[in-house]
C-alpha cells in the first residue's frame, strides 16, 4: 500500500473543500481499501466522509431519497424500501456478504470498481488502470466479463447488483460539487468504456454523491431481482435481472428490465421492455421478450454462454414477477 494522508472533515463543506484539493472520498472503504492493498489505487489523501449527515432514507416530492452514506444493510431493512421496491431489497440482500453490507454504502456501491482480475493485478495490461497499456482480458481469461457495452479497450463488467435494480427503477444520482448541486440519471452517470475506460462515471473533480433518488412509480408495481451464480451466496453475478412491471386490467402498461453481470455498466434491456409494453402476461410473451435480451451481445472466448444464460434469466424473472395469467 502506498503511503497516504487521511482527513475526516466535520461537515459537507469541509469535505467538498478537501475533495477540491484532490482528496479521494472514502466511506465504507470496501472497494477502495482492497484496491489500495493491491496498489491499484494510490490516493495521496483520503477524505473520510463517513461522518457526514448523508445517510437518511425518506420520501420527498421527487420520490424516495436514499442518502449516499446509508449502509446497504440499513437500506435493505428499511420498511419503506421493503414495501415499495422488493427489487431493490433483493439486489442488496443477494450482494456481497452480511459483513460487507454492514460497511458498504449506497454511494460507494455505485462507484465500486470492476472485479476484472487483470485490472486488479498491477503487473497485467489494463487500459482502465493504465490507459494505453492494452486489455489483458480481451484475449485472456474472460468468463466473468461483459458481452454488452464492451470495446476493444475494455471488457470489464460493472459488478454491482444494486445499480441493476436502480437502473430498472429509473433512479437518479444527486451530486454536490464546487459548482453546486446537479442530478444525473444513473444509466447516464455510469459510462461505457469506449476508448476511455479509465472514465467510469460522470463525476466531476471534487464532486460528491449525496443521494440516490427513485422517482415515483405508478401503482400497483411488481418487481424482483434474480441473480445467477456458481455458488449460493457471496459471489458476483454471472447474470442478473431486475424486473419492474406496472400492470392494470391484465395489461402491462410499463416495463423496466435491466441486467447485471453481462454489461460494462448496468444494462437496460430496452428491446425487452418494448416487447412487453401493452401486452398481456403469458408464458409465450415472456419467451418472446427474453429472446431479444442479448441483442448486440459480443461474446468473448470464455463467456459466450452468457448470451443464452441472459435470455433464460430474463425469461425466468419475467415469469416470476409477471406471472402467467
Amino acid at each position, binding site marked *: *500500500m*502506498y*503511503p497516504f494522508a487521511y482527513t475526516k472533515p466535520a461537515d459537507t463543506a469541509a469535505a467538498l473543500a478537501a475533495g477540491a484539493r484532490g482528496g479521494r472520498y472514502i466511506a465504507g472503504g470496501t472497494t477502495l481499501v482492497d484496491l489500495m492493498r493491491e*496498489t491499484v489505487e494510490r490516493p495521496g489523501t483520503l477524505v473520510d466522509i463517513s461522518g457526514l449527515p448523508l445517510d437518511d432514507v425518506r420520501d420527498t416530492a421527487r420520490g424516495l431519497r436514499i442518502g449516499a452514506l446509508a449502509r446497504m444493510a440499513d437500506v435493505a431493512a428499511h420498511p419503506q424500501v421493503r414495501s415499495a421496491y422488493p427489487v431493490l431489497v433483493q439486489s442488496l440482500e443477494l450482494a456481497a456478504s452480511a459483513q460487507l453490507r454492514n460497511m458498504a454504502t449506497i454511494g460507494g456501491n455505485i462507484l465500486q470498481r470492476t*472485479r476484472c*482480475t*487483470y485490472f*486488479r*493485478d*498491477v*503487473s*497485467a495490461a489494463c487500459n482502465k488502470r493504465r490507459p494505453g497499456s492494452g486489455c*489483458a482480458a480481451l*484475449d*485472456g*481469461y474472460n468468463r*466473468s466479463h461483459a458481452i454488452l457495452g464492451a470495446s476493444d479497450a475494455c471488457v470489464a463488467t460493472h459488478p454491482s447488483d444494486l445499480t441493476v435494480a436502480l437502473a430498472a427503477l429509473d433512479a437518479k444520482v444527486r451530486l454536490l460539487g464546487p459548482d453546486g448541486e446537479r442530478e444525473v440519471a444513473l444509466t447516464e452517470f455510469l459510462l461505457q468504456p469506449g476508448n476511455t475506460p479509465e472514465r467510469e462515471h460522470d463525476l466531476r473533480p471534487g464532486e460528491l454523491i449525496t443521494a440516490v433518488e427513485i422517482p415515483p412509480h405508478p401503482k400497483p408495481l411488481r418487481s424482483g431481482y434474480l441473480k*445467477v*451464480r*456458481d*455458488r*449460493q*451466496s*457471496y*459471489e*458476483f453475478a*454471472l447474470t442478473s435481472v431486475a424486473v419492474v412491471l406496472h400492470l392494470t386490467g391484465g395489461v402491462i402498461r410499463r416495463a423496466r428490465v435491466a441486467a447485471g453481470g453481462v454489461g460494462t455498466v448496468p444494462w437496460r434491456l430496452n428491446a425487452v421492455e418494448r416487447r412487453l409494453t401493452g401486452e398481456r402476461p403469458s408464458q409465450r410473451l415472456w419467451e418472446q421478450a427474453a429472446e431479444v435480451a442479448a441483442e448486440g451481445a459480443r461474446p468473448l472466448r470464455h463467456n459466450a*454462454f452468457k448470451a*443464452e*444464460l441472459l435470455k*433464460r*434469466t430474463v*425469461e*425466468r424473472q419475467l415469469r416470476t414477477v409477471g406471472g402467467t395469467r
Partner: protein
Amino acid sequence: MTQQARPVAGTPLSRVDGRLKVTGRAAYAAEQDAHAAVRGEVHGVIVTSTVGKGRITGIDTAQAAAQPGVLAVISHLNAPKLPYRPYRGEVDPARGERLRVFQDDRVRFFGQPVAVAVAETLEAAQHAASLVQVTYAAERPATGLDAPAGPPNQSENYQRGNADQALQQAHTRLARTYRLTRENHHPMEMHATIARWDGDRLTVWDKSQFVRTVRGELAAVFGIPAESVHVISPFVGGAFGSGLRAWPHVAVAALAARQVRRPVKVMLTRKQMFTGTGFRPLTEYKLTLGADERGRVTAAVHDIRAETSTYEDYREALLTQGQMTYTTPNVRQSYRSIPLDVSTPTWMRGPGAATAAFPIECAMDELAYELGIDPIELRLRNEPERDPGTGVPFSTRRLRECFRIGARTVGWDERAPQPRSKREGHWLIGTGVAVATYHTARAPAQALARVEADGRATVQCATSDMGPGTYTSMTQIAADALGLPAGRVRFELGDSAMPLAPPHGGSMTMASVGSAVQDTCDKLRKQAIALAVADPASPLHGAPAGDVVVRDGRLHLRDEPGRDESYRDLLARGKDGRLEARGGYTPGDEAERYSMHAYGAVFAQVAVDERLGMARVRRLLGVYDAGRIINPKLAHSQAIGGLVGGIGMALLEHTVTDPRDGRIANPNLADYLVPTNADVPDVNAIYLDGDDRKADPIGVKGLAEVVIVGVAPAIANAIFHATGRRVRDLPITIEALL
C-alpha cells in the same frame, strides 16, 4: 489396554485446545511474535516474478531501499550462495531438485520468489516490495498438458491379465476422458515463518504439518547440522497438505534473518498461496472399461497424465484405486507426469485417491446406465473377496455394509432409475453414489510421557494438529493408558525437539502417533506399578504387578479396590518426584500380509435448475468403514469438512492459469470459489462400529482423506441422474449444464 472404568477414547470429548482457539489465545505461526524470544523481529515481504518463464535481466531496488525503515532488499544479485546440500524428505518428490531461493536469474514459473524486502514494519516492507522493479527476458511458458515444457517423465505402469484382449471380447465397452482442474488448498491461515539466528543456531516458528522436514531442509539449505535447527509449530490453522513440505518462503525467512541479523517474519499473501505452497495437479484421466452383460468389469485401461513442475517430478498414488476397488481381472495402467512451467504440485487432501475416484466412479455409473443395472448393484457385482492386485486378504473391508446403511438412510430403493424422473418446479432432482477408499498408512512414531509429582501427565510427540484434533485424541489415548482423567493429561506437539513423528498427513497420524502414545503410556503405567509393588511403603507392596490396575489416577488391585494409592503419593516417595517413559510404534509387515484401506459409500442428492444450469447440493451422506473412532465429535467435524471440500472439488474450485504468461487468473477468494454455508444444507456422516486390529494396535484406519474421496463423482452422478447430462470435466459449471 484401557484402564478406565469408562474409557475416554470413543467419547465425544470437546477439543482440549478449543478455548484457546476461540478466545484468540492460540498463537499461530505469524502470531508467535507475542513470544518473548521473537521480540525485535522485522518483516519480510516477498516479491514474485511477473513472467512465467525466462531470466531476470535487472532488479532496481533503489526506490525500495530508500523508503524509511527498509533494512534490505535481497535477491540473487546480493544473496549469498547457499550450500543447498542434498535433502529429500518423505514428503518431497522422489526425483528433481527443490527450488533454490535467490541463487540464480532463472524464472521457472509465474509467482516465483525473486526478491524479499525487509523492513522494520510490515507496511514499510509491503510498500518497499511493491517498489522493486524487476525486468525480464521473458519466454512463453508451457502451462497445458498438450504443450509441455519438455518430454513427459517416465511413466509409471501396472498390469494384470491381458486388458487389451479382454476389451476385445467384452460385451460392453466404454472409453471416456475425464479432466480434473488444478485446485489449491487455501486453508484459512496463510503460511508464515518467523526465523531467528543465534550464531549458527536457527530457530523457526513455522506453519507446518511436519516440523522434522522443515528442520532437515533448513539444515541442508544452510549447511548446518539438523540439531542446530529448532522448528516450532504449536498451532496450524488448516493446511490440507500445503504444510507438509518446507516451501521456498521458509528458506527466504531464514536467509533474510541471517542477512539483517534480526528475527524476520514472512507471511504469504493469499495471492502468493496460489503459487507458493503447492496444489492438486491438473489431471487428465482416460479410462476404458469392458464388461460382460451382467455388469462384471472384465477389463480396465487407465491412461493418466498430470502436471508437475520442470524442476521436480511430483507423483501421487493415482494407480491404487484402479487396482483394488473392483475385481477386474485384466487391468493396464500408465501414469505420466508432464513437466510444465509451474510451481511443484503437492499433496492435497485425499491425494491421488480423490482424483482417481472421479473417473473410476463416474465410469462405473456410466456403465450401470448403459447396462440398465442399479449403480449400487453394479458395484456389488464387482466387489472383490481379496485384494485383486496383490491377492492378499483385506484387513477389513465392509463396503457392502456401507452401501446397505447408506441406501436405507437416503431411501435409495424409492429412487426411479431413469434420469430426469424427479422434478420440483424448475429444479431437477437426482441422486448419485460413489465409492471412497483410501489406503491405511502407518509410519514409525515415538513419544515421551511423564507423570509429575502433582499426578499430572505430559505426553509429547513432534506431530501436528492442522485441524483433526490431534491434541484431543492423543489426550484421550494417553488418559486411558495412564489411568488418568483427560483433564490431568496434557499432550504437546509441533516442536522438532520432541520425539519423532511421521508427516501429519496421509491419514496416518491417529494410527501411528496414537499407537506410539499408547505404547509409551502403557510403559509408563507399568513402570509406576512396578515401582509400587516393589516399594515397602506402598499399600500395593508385594502384589503381583499383573493384578494392579490404574483408574482415575489411582493404582489399585483389580479385585481389591481399597488397596490403592495415587500416582501423587507414589511419586512423593520417589527421589525424582516424577516418572518418565519413552516408547513408540513401528509398523510390522502387516501391509504385506493384508490389504488395508478405509472405505466409504458416498450418496449425493443434487438439484439442478433446468434452465439456468445452477447445480446445488441438497444432501450429502458418507457412510464410512474407517476402523475405530477415537472421538466421534472430532471424526464428525473431520468428515463434514472432507465432504464440503468434495462439494468444492465437484462444483466450484478451479485455479485458472493464463496460458500467455502463466499468471493465475483468479488469485483471490472472490474468484477462486469454495462452498459457503449456503452451499452445504444437509451434510452428514455415519461410521460403522468396529475396529481394525490388523492395521495397528489401536484399531484405526484413518479418516481424514477418505472423506473427500468419492464426493465429486457422487455429485457428478447425481447431476446425471437429475438431468441426463454427463459432465466429465471438473468443476461442473453452469455453462456445462445449460
